[in-house]
């Protein structure tokens, strides 16, 4: 019983940890797509961010500079996406795919060239990372039944970026629905013509959106390489960018639902990890792959309109052209 509760607590705290990069990336995708620019490139931007963070951390030994580096790289990738999609009105999906593939290749090439180890970066010292923050008196709390562990491991016991991620959701929501920028952003995603005739620059609005997306992807990447782990390893995003995309779609392009989708997917992952190769008396092994595929299946089901319609921003994917 006690053990079961500990299990649950452990899974919950793991859920938060695994959901964090998803939340960052999902928010990134939301900002980009709410402005009408499809963002398939989350994965790539996250990966590049993770690599940048690890490199800077190795060189400077400062977690904060590393985070900054990740953000800058994220922004650069975002600007590239903007250049292709907004300025040159290229195919947004193609651009995203290009970014993913480039990131996958370049990170390993550079990493291997700079550090050897087949693309892995050297391990980081604690002060080059965002370490777990223990809530005051957690070790005593541990002994308090039920709530104790919750306090120690679910509420507390995470690194700074985790809290930033979950702060990003209300902030993102507030920006989107309570600021001028947000109003215009939502408008440009629905109908750029309207925004244009209202005397607002469509281009600049959309650029800001992809830049924000870049920043958030930087956070996501940094979390992977210098908070959750102590090094960058090749392809370490392992499809999280696409799960985040799925979560955003699942959340119908809205902050809170997207966050809950991330938590759900995080939970699934946390459970899947723990079930891997564990034999249950009688049942034997559970096919973990099924649980791992669940996020994608759920998203498809949603897209198919079987559980409510996912309404994408109306102008999503269409470059803004005045004169036909």
């Amino acid at each position, binding site marked *: 019983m006690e053990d079961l509760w500990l299990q649950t607590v452990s899974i919950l705290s793991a859920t938060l940890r695994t959901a964090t990069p998803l939340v960052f990336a999902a928010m990134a995708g939301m900002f980009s797509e709410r402005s009408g620019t499809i963002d398939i490139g989350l994965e790539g931007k996250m990966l590049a961010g993770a690599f940048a963070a690890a490199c800077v951390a190795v060189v400077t030994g400062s977690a904060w500079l590393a985070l900054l580096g990740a953000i800058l790289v994220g922004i650069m990738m975002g600007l590239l996406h903007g250049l292709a999609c907004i300025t040159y009105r290229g195919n947004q999906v*193609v651009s995203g*795919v290009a970014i993913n593939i480039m990131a996958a290749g*370049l990170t390993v090439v550079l990493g291997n060239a700079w550090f050897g180890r087949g693309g892995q970066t050297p391990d980081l010292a604690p002060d080059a990372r965002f370490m777990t923050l223990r809530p005051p008196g957690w070790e005593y709390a541990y002994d308090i039944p039920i709530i104790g562990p919750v306090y120690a491991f679910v509420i507390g016991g995470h690194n700074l970026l985790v809290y930033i991620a979950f702060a990003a959701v209300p902030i993102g929501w507030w920006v989107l629905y309570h600021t001028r920028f947000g109003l215009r952003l939502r408008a440009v995603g629905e109908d750029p013509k309207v925004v244009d005739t209202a005397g607002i620059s469509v281009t600049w609005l959309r650029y800001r959106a992809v830049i924000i997306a870049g920043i958030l992807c930087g956070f996501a990447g940094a979390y992977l390489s210098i908070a959750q782990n102590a090094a960058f390893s090749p392809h370490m995003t392992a499809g999280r960018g696409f799960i985040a995309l*799925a979560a955003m779609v699942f959340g119908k392009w809205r902050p809170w639902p997207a966050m809950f989708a991330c938590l759900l997917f995080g939970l699934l992952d946390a459970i899947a990890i723990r079930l891997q190769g564990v034999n249950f008396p009688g049942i034997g092994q559970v096919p973990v792959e099924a649980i791992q595929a669940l996020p*994608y299946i759920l998203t498809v089901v949603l897209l198919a309109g079987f559980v409510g319609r996912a309404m994408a921003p109306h102008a999503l994917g269409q470059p803004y052209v005045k004169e036909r």
Partner: protein
Amino acid sequence: MSAASQAALPRWVDIGLMPIVNLIQALLVAGLVVLIIGVNPIDAMRIMAWGAVYDSVAISYTLYYATDFVFTGLAVAVAFHAGLFNIGGEGQAYVAGLGATLAILLLDAYLPGILLIPLGLMAAMVFGAGWAFIPAYLQAYRGSHIVITTIMFNFIAASLMVYIGSDLLRPPGDMLPSSREFGDAAHLPHVHELAALLGLKMPSTPLNLSILWAAACCVFVWIFIWRTRWGYAIRAVGLSPKAAVYAGISPQRVILIAMCLSGALAAGVALNQIIGYHHRLLLDFVAGAGFTGIAVALMGRNHPIGIVLSAVLFGALYQGGAELAFEIPTITRDMIVAMQGLVILFSGALAYMNRPWIARVYAMFNRRAILAEAT
């Protein structure tokens, strides 16, 4: 911008010059990267180019890789002609491998290769098409964005195959999650084996007969898209859905046809890798060929001939890249992945960036030419 990009250029510029310009741009950026990591780009280039062709082994490997890319390139292209972006080639090829494997595991004890291999291929195509059908159906009748659904299906396929590979097909006590080895009847002959029959001595390489299937697919796609009424319908929908509806063509049906064909083409990878080389279901045997297909199709301008050319180019990059990795350890094969990304970026996403200035340059030369004639 629109004016410039609408300026009509002759076809040879569009389908001949542009891709080359894109390639050069990609090569330049890649060269820059190589320079950054302290290797002389010229040397790297030389090693790669040489490594791709220096002897029959290298050439065979180049072609062996190219075979996959022809399949996936065609798959992407066919979807493109219907105005669809099929990112799911990877997953479709992967599941196709399962189809081939199941068919062969069931029958390799009973049938001769002459029957077994075609059956395997057919099963592969059915599975590949089936895996493409679901997203197609959802797009056509439920309006789900096919890009997202095909991405999701890549991941679903991955999980599915891991489960099947490790939990269902893996022989007990075997380390790798893979099926048992196929019986000899199921081995698609390698080119060097045939050469041996003809008395030619060729080193043993993975290059196998699936290259003929690739050629057949090219011819088929070319005929199907440009010579049949179905191809006509596909192109009409792709170029102008409204006109297609006016013409009484059902976009829904076209989407289904195009995507299923796309999946069936991607299945060729299973023929080359599973039946042609590994002779067993291996995890991740597609190894990114599905995504390379996007670059190949973009560079090949969605035409079989262009696709063959760019597929061979990428095959050479892969083979040359392996050589490069041998010669210069600081450069890993991932350089090629980066190259792919750059090609997709320049020939796809940034296509409109080049058009204006190329148009201008072209106009300039044109004027020159005209003046020259005048005098």
